[in-house]
């Protein structure tokens, strides 16, 4: 099991979290101007690196805040937890 460092609660078991996918995938600035292939790209296409990957997690069973971490997809090393969203202060 992963031990994930919540920026507010510290290290907690993976079972307390939900995964939120790749971080920093920007919502289209002008959604009406986006055609189908671009929507598909936005919705479904994600980086799938072998190595460091920046991703979002939410601490559902704890403080319920969203944050980002860098996770190494080979070693599962996790570092640099950062707050995101409105709750981040």
């Amino acid at each position, binding site marked *: 099991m992963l031990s994930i460092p919540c920026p507010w609660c510290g290290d*907690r*078991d993976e*079972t307390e979290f939900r995964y939120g996918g790749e971080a920093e995938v920007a919502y289209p600035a002008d959604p009406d101007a986006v055609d189908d292939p671009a929507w598909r790209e936005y919705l479904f296409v994600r980086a799938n690196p072998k190595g460091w990957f920046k991703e979002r997690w939410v601490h559902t069973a704890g*403080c319920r805040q969203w944050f980002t971490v860098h996770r190494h997809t080979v070693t599962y090393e996790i570092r640099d937890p950062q707050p995101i969203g409105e*709750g981040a*202060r």
Partner: protein
Amino acid sequence: MTTALDRRRSPLAVVSDRLAATGSADTVTFAERPFRVQLEVRAGAMLRPGVLDDALGLHPPAEVGTVARRRERHVLCLAPSWWLVTDEPEREPRLECALAELVRTAGGIDVSAVDVSAQRTTIDVAGPSARDVLAHGCSLDLHPSAFTVDSCAQTTLAKAQVVLQQLDDAPTYRVHVRASFADYLAHWLLDAATEYVH
């Protein structure tokens, strides 16, 4: 006159006798604390500093996982700008009214206070074996070096979502559990305590 307050039953009414009869002061004891007042307060940076202090009668802690207390009133910091305020059972909604007044004066901007008293009930788990009993179903490090008096945490206990709080060095832990999970968790606690109380 019998009021609705006199007729209410806690989610643990059916098991409270068993909880009370289990264990001893030199092992572990359980006690339900039913009907405590509970409010969830959220307030952001736009709220004038000190306004919450006046309404609550004490300063809400800013650090997630810590508790401020004055007598029976406990203010638990659950997340940034998010507190659970608990107090002894009251017949009139005094605390709720004070906070409603605060929300009114703040114009409802960046602050909310919601009565969640019926959402959870409360079980105190105390005694030298309390930590071991909880550790059977909780992945938090409850060692005094990591979790101590006036620490609190939202976490899972036996897969039930709880708010855990340490009251004293006995140690006494306070478990706030959703009403719908209370019966399950009480039975789980009784089961987990078996090896310590016999």
